[in-house]
């Protein structure tokens, strides 16, 4: 299967480790991974902040870059939801743009969807002997409806103790530019999320979105809370051999 990695601009720039983890994980599961170098950003920040023109330009670029692949895998629920849920609303129904989006968008998968729905695998052979709690992130939960897919993947990781996160379904307060446009409410939401994370006694907070983790992790770090953040892909990529 010819799989294109859609790294997302945030992961590309700030969290390259997540991208490397996806590559090693997918190869371990027998996929041929390609990284279309012309990719940049899905345009979510622009569209959701009210800059539709720039956003549409980036969406057009995305559909050109990723057309022709069997599957496009993104280590981000939010960016995958942007392409699948929001792209169709950016174009006039019946237009050429709509046709291009209709061709590419259904092939875009968030990582856990790709593993469970396409590769039909739940046990990816990972080993991670740590106490972990999982934050489902809004666009994964209510946008893509990932449900328990990430938890099923984590439940098969050897050595991993998964502790439920209280009020997991509540937004962490990141919300893209919301974090800087409404900093007080964003921080208040982050404080409550952090309180719930610390209550689990976990050493690792895991999610399928590094942007949310950047916000929660930034708050944890500021508090010297001693909990580290890890993307789902990084845990799933870890084996006894790689440690």
């Amino acid at each position, binding site marked *: 299967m010819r799989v294109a990695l859609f790294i997302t601009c945030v992961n590309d720039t700030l*969290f*390259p480790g997540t991208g490397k983890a996806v590559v090693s994980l997918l190869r371990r599961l027998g996929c041929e991974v390609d990284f279309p170098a012309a990719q940049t950003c899905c345009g979510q920040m622009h569209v959701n902040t009210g800059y539709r023109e720039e956003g549409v*330009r980036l969406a057009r670029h995305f559909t050109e870059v990723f057309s022709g692949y069997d599957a496009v895998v993104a280590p981000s629920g939010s960016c995958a939801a942007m392409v699948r849920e929001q792209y169709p609303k950016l174009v006039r129904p019946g237009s050429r743009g709509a046709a291009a989006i209709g061709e590419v968008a259904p092939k875009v998968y968030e990582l856990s969807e790709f593993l469970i729905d396409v590769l039909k695998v739940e046990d990816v052979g990972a080993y991670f002997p740590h106490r972990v709690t999982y934050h489902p992130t809004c666009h994964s939960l209510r946008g893509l409806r990932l449900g328990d897919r990430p938890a099923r993947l984590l439940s098969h990781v050897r050595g991993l103790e998964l502790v439920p996160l209280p009020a997991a379904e509540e937004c962490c307060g990141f919300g893209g530019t919301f974090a800087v446009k409404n900093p007080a409410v964003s921080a208040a939401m982050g404080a409550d999320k952090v309180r719930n994370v610390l209550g689990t006694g976990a050493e690792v907070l895991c999610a399928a979105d590094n942007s949310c983790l950047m916000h929660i992790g930034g*708050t944890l770090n500021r508090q010297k809370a001693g909990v580290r953040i890890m993307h789902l892909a990084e845990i799933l990529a870890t084996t006894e051999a790689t440690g």
Partner: protein
Amino acid sequence: MSGTFLGMPGNFPKNAEKAVQDSQLRFNLRKATHTIRGKRASVVDELPDWQELRAAGKAIKDETLRHLDRYLVQLEDAVTGAGGHVHWARDAAEANRIVTGLVKATGESEVVKVKSMATQEIGLNEALAEHGITAYETDLAELIVQLGDDFPSHILVPAIHRNRAEIREIFLDKMAETPEGLTDEPAALAEAARLHLRERFLRSKVAISGANFMVAETGTLVVLESEGNGRMCLTLPETLISVVGIEKLLPSWRDLEVFLQLLPRSSTGERMNPYTSMWTGATEGQDFHLVLLDNGRTDVLADEVGRQALRCIRCSACLNVCPVYERAGGHAYGSVYPGPIGAILTPQLRGMGSELDASLPYASSLCGACYDVCPVAIDIPEVLVDLRAKAPHGRAERAGMRVAGWVLGNEVRLAKAQRLATRFRKLVPRRLPGPLSAWTDTRDLPEIPEESFRDWWERHERP
């Protein structure tokens, strides 16, 4: 007399910043919203056909809005045929003028009121006061707000920001006839309010209400409530004036079947509300006037994306699940319509000319919890994003977004920007200057890696 929100200064982020520091407010809101949220979830989850009901509610409202012109005339005919008088009000000023004139014609200087969002939206109490007419709110929570010289902060529970101890203080301070030794027990507070209100019900000759629904087919108006105070107002006085937004219409009597299930379960978290009052035209011995209010609604109807906000049945489920509302409180929205629905309704009804109204579409993290619970499936995040595209943008932000769009528009430019960030990564300060300080005030920045993913791929993987 509670004030009016119109012309309120400031903006949402500034208002919210004050609210998040108010520990009492945060405690009251957390407790109240989580309680109603839980009750709603339990009575919604017990219905196997909730999603079908929700789809039916959406479909009925959409059908009504598509042919609103026709249904409104049908309603007018039915109400008039049943002995009522129908008045049409283009905006708040016209509605206030009509109602003031009707009250004046009775020669009365006091009116009792049923809880109503439409009359709050138009500032009716203040308009009546200007003409020497005193309006008494009879819904318990509205009474608390009115006595406390306060603003409502929730659609269903206007005094949600107050706890029992605060309500007791307000009663002791503002009610002439409070019983001695008043405690903050809910039953004691309700009894004090009952004593206070009972006398007004018996004395008042004019009542003003809104309505949850109007049935075009029969000309029937419907009010759902919990306390029975509304029914007192609707039945006792000689003159009843109802001010209702034109979108509150339903085509037929049968449609109530859907909405009388959707509303109480979404709103108070009850299977059925305690009181449902229905009346058609003028009942014996009563004069009935219906004031149909536009006040911006036809403009909303003209907007292809935004018009779905007119499906709203004012249940407040979106407020009770909203993480932003829970922390900012209702007053931060500067409107009688707070929370997620307010963030899409207020800018559409009032426009985005003021700093406050222009900030409302951004008062959301787009988490989508509101859309999930909405009984008429209003895609609030979709409308928010659409309004953001229409909102005025600050010059600095616009420039920043344009540069970001240019850098992200092409992989060569993006790679150059990434290499620049990588080279100077050790020089990034712990606290960022300017608007970006909003991030670093409460959060550490992630460390910039030695190499972007694309550069790593280029070095390792490129054949």
